[in-house]
């Protein structure tokens, strides 16, 4: 009885503290702050303090939450919470150097689909707000999701094939197995055939998180923050937090898929190591791309992802398929 209780407590701890909610909150926000700082420095600015996202979050918590007359209240309020919870759950499945809180419960294809839920939550929240700006925003967000889907699918299939070939099972969808494989054989990024896929993944991350220059869905200067046009106060804070957590999730997914095998085996230390790797990935894929580009139009985003990025991923997939 007590062991069941302890187990339950342990899992609750996983969900609430590490690598769940609290970890996501702190690390995601830090990542977001570091990203803003880095972008500022690349633009020769001082930039906001690293803790700025925390200030933003708490300030928004203290603001009034206005629900417009045209909005569908329940969906409007519930959408951000569902999106955040779904993101936290994805983070639970991403292994941290061999440690995964919930082993063998979801594989890469499932993760691909789970990533749709937060996006879908924000889309439905935007739809429920009734604003035409949000309508345009959600249309763009959906197109961005479609754009990112093809390269992401190709990348994941390439990884599944590569790891599966090496393990002799033919294909391997399990995230934990991919992580374990890298513990033994070294990071996937060291394999020449996976480098195009890794580059493609780096380019997919800002699209998935909706960062500059792929932020047509939330373009604050053109369509008044797009999907978030009617959100204020607490729900907006949760959306901003979701965005930060999404950055953490995707970068740590990149770390788990391509940079696995770096770590010590002590979970606490690995958490820090993974976070540092996440910061590096963020610096390269989010901050750097942000600093050197201007916002793309939505049809450009689509074209870019389905030609350049998908092409890179396809190269990897074909190389992996023929075992080159």
């Amino acid at each position, binding site marked *: 009885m007590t062991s069941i209780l302890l187990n339950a407590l342990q899992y609750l701890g996983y969900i609430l503290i590490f690598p769940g909610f609290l970890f996501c909150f702190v690390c995601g926000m830090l990542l977001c702050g570091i990203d803003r700082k880095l972008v500022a420095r690349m633009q020769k600015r*001082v930039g906001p303090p690293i803790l700025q996202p925390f200030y933003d979050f708490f300030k928004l918590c203290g603001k009034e939450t206005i629900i417009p007359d045209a909005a569908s209240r329940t969906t409007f309020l519930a959408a951000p919470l569902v999106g955040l919870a779904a993101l936290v759950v994805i983070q639970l499945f991403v292994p941290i150097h061999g440690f995964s809180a919930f082993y063998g419960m979801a594989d890469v294809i499932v993760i691909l689909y789970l990533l749709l839920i937060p996006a879908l939550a924000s889309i439905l929240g935007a739809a429920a707000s009734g604003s035409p700006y949000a309508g345009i925003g959600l249309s763009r967000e959906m197109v961005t999701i479609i754009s990112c889907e093809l390269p992401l699918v190709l990348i994941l299939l390439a990884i599944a094939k590569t790891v599966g070939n090496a393990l002799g099972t033919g294909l391997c969808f399990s995230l934990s197995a991919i992580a374990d494989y890298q513990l033994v054989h070294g990071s996937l990024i060291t394999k020449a055939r996976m480098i195009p896929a890794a580059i493609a993944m780096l380019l997919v991350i800002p699209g998935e998180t909706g960062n500059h220059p792929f932020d047509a869905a939330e373009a604050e200067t053109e369509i008044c923050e797009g999907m978030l046009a009617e959100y204020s106060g607490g729900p907006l804070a949760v959306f901003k937090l979701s965005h930060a957590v999404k950055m953490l999730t995707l970068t740590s997914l990149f770390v788990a898929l391509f940079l696995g095998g770096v770590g010590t085996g002590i979970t606490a230390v690995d958490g820090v190591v993974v976070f540092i790797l996440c910061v590096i990935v963020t610096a390269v894929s989010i901050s750097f791309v942000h600093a050197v580009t201007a916002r793309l139009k939505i049809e450009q985003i689509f074209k870019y992802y389905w030609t350049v990025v998908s092409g890179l991923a396809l190269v990897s997939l074909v190389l992996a398929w023929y075992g080159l």
Partner: protein
Amino acid sequence: MFKKLIEESTAKSPWLFHINSGSCNGCDIELVAILTPRYDVERLGFKLAGSPRQADIVVVTGPITKQSLPRVLRSISQVPEPRCIVTMGSCPQSGNVFKGSYSVAGPLSKYVHVDVDIAGCAPKPEAIIDGLALATQILKEKRGQM
């Protein structure tokens, strides 16, 4: 504890919403200038918001023409509390050289309570930073009274 935290955060993360009510663009350019690398108010937590729902400080420029008056007032009313209204440049404070024109409905203080006036035509970016810093303090006080 959280109340204190929220108050502190309110002062450190004011988001601006800019309304141009018939301005000559001088002030608008100066407002953008404070976001440039040279002045970079993002280091103080300022950010331009795209929608009044997300703003804390409303910056109004221009002499409040009759056409823009209902739109300005509607946008201001859509900003959630606590909010702070800042007029920038001489126009929204008095009408400046447009004073007495048939198409000018200003000054803004006739319609809403204005918290901070930043004088200048157009104000120097440093002056804007001064004024906005003052506005954040007012914002913090308002948050404390909520």
